[in-house]
């Protein structure tokens, strides 16, 4: 029962309220500002092919890899002119959603 639960603090507009949290609230994902140098998978799937190597210079729009999901081959492209810093995946690897695939940096 709620009475036996330990109360938690919820701050709303400067006031601290004693209350309990729902599971859904506790499991919410905290927002992080996206890091443009990290390329994550936007869908779970299989890495069909990787076209770049570490330290390679790549132009904006060039295809970095193919990620197959939902029976579609998705081309993952370079967002800006830059260099491949590190590749975290292998060919034929099955990866979940929001998995770090490639680190890059601006030219």
């Amino acid at each position, binding site marked *: 029962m709620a009475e036996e639960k330990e109360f938690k603090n919820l701050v709303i507009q400067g006031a601290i309220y004693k209350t309990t949290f729902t599971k859904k609230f506790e499991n919410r994902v905290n927002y992080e500002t996206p890091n443009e140098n990290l390329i994550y998978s936007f869908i779970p799937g299989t890495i069909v092919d990787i076209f770049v190597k570490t330290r390679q210079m790549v132009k904006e729009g060039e295809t970095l890899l193919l990620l197959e*999901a939902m029976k579609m081959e998705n081309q993952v492209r370079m967002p800006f002119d830059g260099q491949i810093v590190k590749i975290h995946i292998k060919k034929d690897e099955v990866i979940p959603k929001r998995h770090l695939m490639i680190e890059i940096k601006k030219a």
Partner: protein
Amino acid sequence: MSLRSNVLDLRKRKREVQKGGGDEAIEKQAAMGKLTARERILALLDKNSFHEYDLFVEHAAKDFGMEGKTLHGDGVIIGTGTIYDKPVCIFAQDFTVAGGSLGLMHARKITKIMDHALKMRVPLIGINDSGGARIQEGVNSLAGYGEIFFRNTLASGVIPQISVILGPCAGGAVYSPALTDFVFVVENISKMFITGPSVVKSVLGEEVSMEELGGARVHAEITGNAHFYAETEMECFDQIKTLISFIPRSNLKKALAHKPKAPLKGVKIEDIVPSDPRIPYDMREVIKSITDGSEFFEIMEHFAPNIIIGFGRMNGETVGFVANQPMVLAGVLDIDSSDKAARFIRYCDAFNIPIVTLEDLPGYLPGVDQEHAGVIRHGAKILYAYSEATVPKITVIIRKAYGGGYIAMNSRHLRADFVFAWPGAEIAVMGPEGAANIVFRKEISEAENPEEMRQLKIQEYKEKFANPYVAAAQGYIDEVIEPRETRARVLHALKVSENKTSSMPSKKHGIPPF
């Protein structure tokens, strides 16, 4: 053949068909901890009240070796009966017959009883236990689902529609329950999803069990697709019967009145609520302190528990309660609670049930997740629902009513008929802490001891604005009342609202922020 032998022949035929999928299939059903479709109907309806139709319907499939097969009743039982002597139409899918799969004739039976329910203006109860579309019947089974969904929509707001999920209900089939007013689920038995675990795994590589993906608890707690959760089928049937006792049989009727009862003695309303607005309490206790017999029938108890919705009776008449729950997330409005309350308000409005709102909230929940998930449009639903509702609407501000939350919770400005406030109520744009920080920013930052100054200014703001008298001076609140007067004031307000006439401008329909 003599008439006598005709009758005997009829009885023999009935016995045969009533066995559904036969003994073996019935045993399997029992092994899964499930009652059969027929047992369910008999357990739910008044004794000896069930009358069946279309018992002898045969399936229409001609392909894939189906032409020689017999499917008793084509996997669904339809009929009429009574609950507490009130008529209902009912269908129950029979999992023992071809997995309760839906073919053309199966769907035709369901739509027949739906048409009947709508024509006769009586509640419709659907018991779902089906593997889904009967693949051998191809597009005819899809057509069947479509015909059902269409009728669900036609009947929405005209007759109560109740869906009981007592087995799998997957793929397109889930949209019939989703279109109905109340969905009942039972632990370990109910399964609802658009795509099952095997498809989720093969396409997305995500491993999840049926129970985790779409079990009873998931729908009662996380998705909000279910309104009532029970541990056994019998408990579920009791919940359905209680619900039926609270609601009218159609939008043309009022719910039947019961014998008026006083709340239980011993509950002192003023002892429930702490005066410090930051300390929680269980709002259900406040509701129970003013309802007949201190009874409250909560709906969606486990989903978005920061708002409470449900039925109680006052002076014997059904009342819909909407109340913030300070015990959970301080009673804030957020996406889920707005959605939950808005749908309930529209239900009450459609079925002539007055709404009593008990208010105690610090506002809307802040957070990137809320904003990005669309708290603006979801939060707008509750404003829309209250504004649109023309049934009697009564608000009691128990403790705090800040900002957008104050407006949203059936304020005078959304055409509440009566607004009362307890003497400790704080009606303000925001709480004293937040307000003092903004209004007296300069004084606080320039003070020798800023914290001391802040506390001083918070106190000053509290005395000046955080009370019910500023709003009462504007007539936004009709009366500041003593807590112990609450039941009497609400009862009187309901009484004088009995013949309320109020209407919206003529229109085809509004465009709520779905």
